């Protein structure tokens, strides 16, 4: 079942003519001519579509929170600042099929009553910005954007804004600050963007994938979308699979397939690379907790783990993780978890905005301590120190970057403490190139 990537390999799908030939912009016609904004919102609510950016908040509910005072403009902002290590799905979608996003933007803006909308694209993806701008121009030429779209009386201006290369600008309020032309510091909440967002006006910020999915929902109805998937995890999800698998890439999966299927089936990742074994998986982009092989395949209760929001987070952080933004990083037994954690910690150290003290100082501290452990200069107390620092960052910061920095470190220690201890106890072995600790009796070590 493919929704977003059905026609993505069609040559020329990035042009509006080919896109329309394959059923493109039908949702715009249907929504603008036959539906009211509230009906569109209702369909999205019925679909159970959840935010694809990481938090998994229901899109329809987010839309219904939007304040609608008289005489105040409302905005829709598409968060295309995809910078999470391991996640590259939005990039793929915008690059291959920009009109899918633009169609979703028109439909969603119509539902929210926004007459100006923005796509905030990560600064490093300059060529994607050019592709989007070209596609938007095509849409303007065909009367799908601008004044009086398709004679429905609805006006929409769509702009693309390039980010400056900061991970933090993917946080919705930092994104809005950056869009306003200021330093990308997250705002204190409340007030939430739905009340005071862009230029102090009500704003909805949604991920590329969530917005793109709305046009299919309008075409086929929310109930049809809700039938795909399991329970409260409805629809399909783009997963960026990377790491030690045979076929890395972006896959659109119906939510609800098993993790085992996803890793080993030839339809998706195609299994671990030749002659190696699965050691650990980071299931939703670098900020979610890492899980060792046996925990990612089955839950604590012994059931097979599914690719859904609920099943992946089953058992809390003790034995579970999160679906997050769908950055599925697979590691085989040649991966050193300490080194991997250092890479993540260094990233968050570099990307912390420096506004609130726990994150600013804590990320740097964790980075330095893990680096010492990796270089064979660790102390016994460092492991507990890391756990304590992570605990003191988590939940005490302005935005979720603090949590995102703390979770991978505390999870790595929770599940791979022996590996950290080995680094500290045997620095002469651990610092040798390519040396990786093998846990005796674990499924990945022989």
């Amino acid at each position: 079942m493919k929704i977003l990537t059905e026609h993505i390999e069609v040559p020329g799908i990035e042009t509006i003519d080919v896109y329309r030939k394959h059923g493109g912009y039908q949702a715009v016609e249907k929504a603008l001519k036959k539906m009211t904004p509230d009906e569109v919102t209702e369909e999205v609510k019925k679909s159970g579509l959840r935010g694809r950016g990481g938090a998994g908040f229901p899109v329809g509910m987010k839309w219904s929170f939007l304040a609608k005072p008289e005489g105040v403009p409302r905005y829709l902002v598409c968060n295309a600042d995809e910078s999470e290590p391991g996640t590259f799905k939005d990039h793929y979608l915008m690059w291959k099929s920009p009109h899918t996003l633009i169609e979703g933007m028109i439909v969603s803006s119509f539902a929210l009553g926004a007459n100006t909308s923005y796509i905030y694209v990560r600064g490093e993806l300059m060529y994607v910005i050019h592709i989007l701008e070209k596609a938007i121009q095509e849409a303007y030429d065909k009367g799908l954007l601008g004044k009086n779209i398709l004679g429905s009386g609805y006006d929409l201006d769509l702009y693309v804004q390039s980010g400056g290369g900061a991970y933090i600008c993917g946080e919705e309020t930092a994104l809005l600050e950056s869009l306003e032309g200021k330093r990308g510091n997250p705002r204190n909440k409340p007030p939430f963007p739905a009340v005071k967002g862009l230029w102090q006006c009500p704003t909805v910020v949604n991920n590329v994938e969530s917005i793109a999915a709305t046009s299919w929902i309008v075409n086929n109805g929310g109930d049809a979308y809700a039938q795909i998937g399991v329970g409260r995890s409805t629809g399909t999800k783009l997963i960026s699979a990377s790491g030690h698998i045979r076929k890395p890439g972006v896959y659109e999966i119906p939510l609800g397939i098993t993790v085992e299927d996803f890793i080993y089936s030839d339809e998706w990742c195609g299994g671990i690379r030749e002659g190696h074994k699965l050691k650990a998986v980071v299931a939703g982009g670098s900020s979610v907790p890492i899980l060792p092989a046996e925990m990612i395949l089955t839950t604590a209760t012994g059931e097979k783990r599914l690719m859904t929001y609920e099943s992946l987070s089953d058992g809390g952080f003790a034995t579970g993780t999160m679906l997050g933004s769908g950055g599925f990083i697979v590691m085989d037994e040649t991966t050193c978890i300490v080194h991997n954690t250092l890479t993540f910690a260094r990233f968050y150290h570099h990307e912390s905005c420096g506004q609130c003290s726990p994150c600013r100082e804590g990320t740097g501290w964790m980075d330095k301590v893990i680096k010492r452990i990796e270089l064979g200069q660790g102390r016994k107390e460092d492991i507990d120190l890391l756990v304590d620092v992570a605990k003191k960052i988590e939940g005490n910061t302005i935005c979720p970057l603090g949590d995102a920095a703390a979770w991978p470190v505390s999870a790595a220690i929770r599940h791979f403490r022996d590996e950290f201890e080995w680094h500290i106890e045997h620095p002469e072995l651990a610092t040798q190139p390519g040396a990786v600790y093998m846990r005796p009796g674990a499924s990945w070590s022989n």
Partner: protein
Amino acid sequence: MKVTIDNITLEVEPGTTIMQAARMIGPEIAPPAMCYYEPLKGTGGKCRGCLVKVTAGSEKDPRPMPKLVPSCITTVQDGMIVENTINEQVLETRKGIVEFLLLNHPLDCPVCDQAGECHLQDFSFEHGVSSTRTVEDRNTFEPVDLGPYIKLNMNRCILCYRCVYAADQLTEGRVHGVMHRGDHAEISTYIEKAIDNDFSGNIIDVCPVGALTDRTYRFKSRVWFSKPEEAHCDCDKCSGKVTLWYRGDEVIRVTGRKNEWGEVKEFICNTCRFERKKTSDWVIEGPTKIARHSVISANKYGANLINPSFPIKQAALAYKPIDDDRDRSFLPARKSLPSSEKK
């Protein structure tokens, strides 16, 4: 609106923040503020030193808030119950915040001009731990002169953004701001430009630490050796209400008048601050009141000391004896609290 902070209930206006309500009770209940500065709009929420636990959101919705909330920017709801000094989680988190702030802050208090009136010193004295767990090198920066009057020592900066807000709101055309990200972020002017305008000196007053110091006062004295006097003059630029800091009969420093929270309500101009350093320039009003626990009160006696106002009476009113009938006869006889005496 009714709000209960640490078992003390008081009535406040709608729109009051938890911090403001706590300050109404007294300094012992008020959470520490490193970045929040009442006279400047938009400050607060950054240092996380004032995090408190809300155990009941409001009368209507008495669920506790899941995370600790910054008291300086969270407004009070009717019937809210807040725990500050009596909550373990809050105190533990505050220990962590002190540790984080001191991670890259040099412990050069003996040579720092701010020592004695430094908010970070007070904060770490009240809430920190005496030992350190870090062995890492600190991030260091070179001290910079921001024009003839102000010295920037970025090593000491805790990135509270107060000076940025002060420059935004008091002066026209702010020329300094925060550059870079994370723990390598720094306060800087555009290509080391001098800060030059009539109210720039106020960024020294708002700085909670010794990152921005007065170059005309640098290394002249320790604050507790000098004697503050309230004074005013007829100034065409500002209110002219200042505090003069005397060593002997010499004015060694002029600052704005700070209230008990270390906040300047009436900002002064650079002429008053840096150039009027003779007693003859001023009309003396009398000695400044100093909180007794402040180190500035050292060697000063008399009526200008403010005694601690710990609301022991209020606390006693809320005091409930523990209801159990264990034998306490072995305990020495204890004076009963005022409230139980009355009853």
